[in-house]
């Protein structure tokens, strides 16, 4: 690595400077020193003359930057599909690799243009993703180009070099080896990387007394702790929803955000579509806080978080499990349990009962016993995929720090200064540690407090490895050379292990050399090509141990539950604009978090949306704006983690409230607390203000008794139909499959260079997403049914917008796509006024990122970046249609089914979106258009939309439907 900073541009690698402006360069002292050395005369210039000189010399400096690129640490990075002889400008290269989330691998294929990744999609060959994505995977690429990333090592905030780091580590190693690593502690987030786990083991071999602590503020680790209590061993659960007939969930958001979302959603939707006459799988969900799972459930029971154990026990009693007592139940609870029990008994081993990651042990115990009694064949166990398995807790670390036992603390891939429960006093304890090293993408709250901030490479510029939720390992290969002065976690670990100048891929190769054996080169290449190494973790069997004890949350009052944020998770994605602006499912909130309360509680305390509430747990409190959540259990209050950050960066700082501030260390998910109004309020940036359907049949439903909708006549049109080319594009969206996860919105944002407009613009109603997930409620606010409806452009055959535009800026093409001609648009906005679906988006201001921002590197070069004053909207990914045409033309053939896949379609974890040629009667989209559930939105207007819907199945609790 040192060779990258030998000759040019002072102590910094030159390549990254390509992303910066010359102005920025000129302010850099190292750069100035270099200029002074190379061009002594320039040192004498006046500031303006010097600036002029730098501008004129820009081109040659840029060349110097390119020279740096050639010496990048790229080694044998294999393209996924084809390996061109040489790079062809304008042709993307695709690599199979992975990004990580909650410690797990998210296997992706990365589209790169001239060496810069712009788009991630699920790896289609991978058993978990099968090509599907979630919002975190889609947005990972923007995290790579985050301008607020730590760009070089710093020591106490002062710039340092990696040589300084090496020297400091050598010094530390000297002191560790004196007493076998006594006083060396590592704090890490959950990791599934075989290489990192191997390195951690090696470190503990070198320094046997070193200690490793695990800190996971949210995610799979919570469930593992529950399972350890229930089964006597830490386990990962695997739901085989593909083979499942009935799911009974006790506050388990199995379809909601999290590492398992893609897998569960895929299985759920596959089962749901098993039959064309009725839904193939039924879901009974007891829920305290409304989430995707409850929204999709045929029978949803509202119950407070602390009541789940009682319900689970009553359910167990209903199934006749010994030791279970049926407590006092309300009629609603009674009915729900009876229905769920009847369905479970009928489904036998094809039934699955689940409890939440963020629930209590009592529920988990009863759920485990029920599954055991049902002999559920659709619940599998494995050893934990993420580790390290024998790590101590954050609490132990703080205790050790307080006791002065910690000399060196290495914090890796977590941000305890922000995410530790405030009651632990982590930041105070940290002051007692002599040497602190923070390894992270950003100099965040923790990096700020540590002596050393060692910047890490992003997954997309790293050599690494990780395991997906099923344990299948992926080798992570870089898709771009690191453009900051950063090192991979394995390189830094190797430094801690005493290596000097470790190569980027050495540690990973070493790990896999051991498991690939003799045929290493071929298998390595194959693994890079495939993006994963065949083989999930083996199944293990587990039975619930009899002596598990449940504990009830202490104290009286409201149930205060904590949930990771659906878009920025535990706060690690705070600085990713795409995720901040992504409307959170159900609330459609952006750029902040809320305290959700039930309508009944809101009525009792006269709370309105946006009123600031003070939530008190013990002697701690936090103030956040209220959101009245239809369907929330009466005495449950939900706080979402991840906001209130102070050192997230320019995007994420100062938004929302910090729920970690009231989170009790011993009750991280459910606590008892109280609530009061502060008398102030604030404006929330929500994208949908009205939630009832008002009697319109926007989302339609069918039942097993009436599986087909009445067909409507298409009203006549004044204009003749358009002549159609060979292909006619159409899209069908299955409302029964849409779980409202927003992956399509995120994918569309990434694919189509959709700008981020910021909180203020969202508040005035100017978000730019080309597809929105409309969310509707039906029924009483206390117990509503929830619906999701993705609304992209309808591509009407008789489009009101086309008639309205005075300058032909929106036009119909021969394949039926309603096109926007950006450079012809003069911004009369007539098209949007006339659009009955209001799917058009307008650049009211210049929403482009500043010209020097590195986020432009994430732009898709196939899609125009729109300037201000221009209308835009869903194009059916016209760039993909055109490139499919080009590819087919080269082979002298017509387009085939599957040649064109839109970004939203590719991302959808449930395959709710089908796109294709409606002129081809055998295409999937044509087949769905003939389905009994098929309907067009507002078809009575005669717009003849090409985007149409499949009605949702209504499958109520009592065996109805």
């Amino acid at each position: 690595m040192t060779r990258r900073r030998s000759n040019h541009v002072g102590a910094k690698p030159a390549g990254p400077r390509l992303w910066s402006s010359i102005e920025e360069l000129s302010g850099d002292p190292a750069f100035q020193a270099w200029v002074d050395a190379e061009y002594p005369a320039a040192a004498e210039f006046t500031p303006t003359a010097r600036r002029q000189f730098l501008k004129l010399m820009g081109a040659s400096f840029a060349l110097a930057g390119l020279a740096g690129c050639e010496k990048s640490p790229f080694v044998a990075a294999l393209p996924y599909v084809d390996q061109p002889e040489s790079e062809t400008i304008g042709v993307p290269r695709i690599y199979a690799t992975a990004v990580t989330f909650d410690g797990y691998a998210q296997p992706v294929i990365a589209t790169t243009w001239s060496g810069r990744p712009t788009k991630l999609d699920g790896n289609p060959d991978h058993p978990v993703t099968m090509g599907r994505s979630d919002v975190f995977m889609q947005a990972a690429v923007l995290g790579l180009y985050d301008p607020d990333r730590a760009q070089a090592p710093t020591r106490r905030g002062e710039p340092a070099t990696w040589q300084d780091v090496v020297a400091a580590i050598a010094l530390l190693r000297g002191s560790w080896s004196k007493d076998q690593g006594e006083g060396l502690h590592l704090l890490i987030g959950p990791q599934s990387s075989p290489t990192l786990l191997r390195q951690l083991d090696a470190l503990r071999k070198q320094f046997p007394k070193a200690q490793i602590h695990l800190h996971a503020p949210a995610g799979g680790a919570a469930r593992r702790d529950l399972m350890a209590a229930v089964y006597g061993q830490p386990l990962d659960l695997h739901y085989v929803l593909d083979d499942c007939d009935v799911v009974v969930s006790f506050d388990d958001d199995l379809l909601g955000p999290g590492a398992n979302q893609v897998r569960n959603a895929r299985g759920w939707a596959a089962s749901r579509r098993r039959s064309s006459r009725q839904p193939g799988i039924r879901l009974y969900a007891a829920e305290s806080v409304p989430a995707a799972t409850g929204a999709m459930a045929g029978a949803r029971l509202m119950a407070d978080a602390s009541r789940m154990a009682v319900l689970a026990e009553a359910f167990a009693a209903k199934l006749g499990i010994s030791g279970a007592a049926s407590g006092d139940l309300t009629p609603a609870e009674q009915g729900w349990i009876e229905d769920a029990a009847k369905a479970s008994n009928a489904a036998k081993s094809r039934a699955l009962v689940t409890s939440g990651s963020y629930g209590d042990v009592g529920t988990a115990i009863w759920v485990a016993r029920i599954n055991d009694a049902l002999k559920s064949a659709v619940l599998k166990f494995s050893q934990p995929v993420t580790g390290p398995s024998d790590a101590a807790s954050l609490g132990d670390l703080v205790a050790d720090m307080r006791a002065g036992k910690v000399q060196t603390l290495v914090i890796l891939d977590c941000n305890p200064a922000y995410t530790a429960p405030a009651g632990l006093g982590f930041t105070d304890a940290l002051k007692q540690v002599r040497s602190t090293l923070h390894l992270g993408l950003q100099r965040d709250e923790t990096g700020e407090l540590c002596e050393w901030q060692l910047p890490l490479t992003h997954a997309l510029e790293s050599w690494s490895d990780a395991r997906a939720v099923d344990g299948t390992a992926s080798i992570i290969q870089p898709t771009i050379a690191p453009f900051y002065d950063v090192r991979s976690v394995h390189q830094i670990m190797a430094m801690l292990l005493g290596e000097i100048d470790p190569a980027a891929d050495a540690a990973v190769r070493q790990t896999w050399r051991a498991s690939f054996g003799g045929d290493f080169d071929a298998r390595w290449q194959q693994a890079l090509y495939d993006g994963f190494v065949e083989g999930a973790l083996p199944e293990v069997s587990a039975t619930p141990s009899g002596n598990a004890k449940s504990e009830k949350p202490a104290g009286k009052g409201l149930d205060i539950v904590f949930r990771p944020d659906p878009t920025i998770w535990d706060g690690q994605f705070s600085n990713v604009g795409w995720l901040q602006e992504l409307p959170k499912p159900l609330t459609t909130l952006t750029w902040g978090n809320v305290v959700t309360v039930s309508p009944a509680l809101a009525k009792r305390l006269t709370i309105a949306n946006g009123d600031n509430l003070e939530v008190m747990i013990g002697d701690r409190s936090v103030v956040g704006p209220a959101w009245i959540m239809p369907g929330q259990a009466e005495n449950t209050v939900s706080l979402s983690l991840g906001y209130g950050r102070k050192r997230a960066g320019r995007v994420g700082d100062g938004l929302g409230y910090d729920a970690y501030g009231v989170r009790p260390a011993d009750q991280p998910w459910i606590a008892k607390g109280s609530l009061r109004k502060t008398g102030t309020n604030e404006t929330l940036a929500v994208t949908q203000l009205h939630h009832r359907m008002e009697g319109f049949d926007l989302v339609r439903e069918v039942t097993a008794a009436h599986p087909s909708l009445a067909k409507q006549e298409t009203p006549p049109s004044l204009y003749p139909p358009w002549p159609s080319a060979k292909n006619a594009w159409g899209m069908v969206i299955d409302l029964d499959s849409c779980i409202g996860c927003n992956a399509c919105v995120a994918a569309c944002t990434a694919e189509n260079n959709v700008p981020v407009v910021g909180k203020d613009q969202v508040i005035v109603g100017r978000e730019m997403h080309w597809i929105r997930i409309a969310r509707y409620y039906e029924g009483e606010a206390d117990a509503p049914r929830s619906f999701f409806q993705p609304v992209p452009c309808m591509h009407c055959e008789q489009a009101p917008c086309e008639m309205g535009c005075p300058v032909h800026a929106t036009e119909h093409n021969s394949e039926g796509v309603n096109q926007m001609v950006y450079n012809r648009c003069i911004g009369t906005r007539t098209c949007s006024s006339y659009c009955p679906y209001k799917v058009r988006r307008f650049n009211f201001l210049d929403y482009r990122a500043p010209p020097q921002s590195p986020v432009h590197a994430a732009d898709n070069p196939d899609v125009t970046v729109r300037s201000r004053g221009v209308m835009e909207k869903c194009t059916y990914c016209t760039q993909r249609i055109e490139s499919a045409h080009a590819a087919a033309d080269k082979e002298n053939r017509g387009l085939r089914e599957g040649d064109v896949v839109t970004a939203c379609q590719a991302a959808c974890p449930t395959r709710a979106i089908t796109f294709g040629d409606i002129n081809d009667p055998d295409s999937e989209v044509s087949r769905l258009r003939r389905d009994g559930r098929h309907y067009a939105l507002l078809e009575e207007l005669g717009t003849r939309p090409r985007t149409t819907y499949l009605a949702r199945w209504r499958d109520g609790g009592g065996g109805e439907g």
Partner: protein
Amino acid sequence: MTDQSDILPVNQSMGGVSDQLTGIPLHFPAERRWLIAMLFASLLLLMFMVSVVELFTRGVGIWGINIPVNWAFAIHNYVWWLGIGHAGTLISALLLLTQSEWRNSLNRFAETMTLFAVICAGIYPVLHLGRPWYLYWMFPYPATMNVWPQFRSPLEWDIWAVLTYLTVSFAFWYTGLIPDLAAARDRATKRGWQIFFGITSLGWRGSAAHWLRWSQAYRLTAGLAVPLVVSVHSEVSLLFAAGQIPGWHSTIFPPYFVMGAAFSGFAVVSIIAISLRSWFGLKNLVTDDHLDLLGMVLIATGLMTAYGYVFEIFDALYSGDAHELQTLADRMTGAYAWTYWGAIVFNFIPLQALWWRIVRRTGWMLMLISISVVIGMWLERYMILVTSLYRDFLVSSWSHFTPTFWDWSTYFGTIGLFLVPFLLAIRFIPMISIFETEELLHEEKEEEHG
């Protein structure tokens, strides 16, 4: 009119009227008040300019518009100004054609008002554009790519309608002005004025041939202008009616808009007439009879507009269309119900006082009622735009609209844009048609004597 009673007091001399009216620009009688008004108007104009610079620098996002309410003040005020403009043409041209001579005291400033109101209206579609520098794409010019405007678009029709209207209004106004410009030329004593009026009067000598040609041209232009009033504002209504949005998509819109336009226009004519006559002491020329007639026209057009309101409700109820009914309910009870009820109250309640002759003949009362109508019609346009757009078909796109500072500053700025040239016109141009007033006076005198 002439066979009823005389609208002008006959005991005044023709020369006296000429001197009185040409004297206004030549020896301006109300210098101080004019200066104060001009200062006020110039400040508004300055605000307009600042707003426009801000607008062109940052984009239409400085306004409160959003998706779904992506048309608001710009279109709203465009319609409002254009509506005001129509009264001038109607008064002048229609009454000229129907030989209602009482118009002669009002037509000049009404036409002037039209001209500047149409300019105010016409500037809004430019400001409204996201990329105003490409306005010329709306014109059919021989573009290298052979792209033509989209002739199905009501906005394209609109461009032609407004330009035609502006041209004809100008021609009509100017034709009518020529004899008076000549009169002013003949009375001008300063060299500069002589040249100015000499050029603008186009060599008018008042020969019989001139009068014949002039009269033909004037009536011909009037004959063009009257149907234009109807067609232009009908066309403006199609901006809305051509879209499928509930609350817009209605065949009642063209007549409804034309009536509303005339209604608001006559209100502004009344305001100006009353102001000018008290300002310049023209009670002998703009008489109480004039006010009486204006009041009658006002209540007549007002009632026709009210008919439009009733039928809009009837249409929605009769159609039984759920979305139309939703919009009707939103208008009456929604977040912008104040615009609906405001429009009804301001437009039609004070108007009823005009049934009394004494109210019609009392300047300040007619003035107050007219101001109320102008506000009411402004609210009506607000209502038609915002209450239709903020909640259209899909509940998920329902939103709100709140005007920003720049919305208001642009709007009030256009009042400056209207007032400054208007004040300049009354300063420098005979504001009441001299020859026509004299003609009327002459006819009245003849009748008296003969």
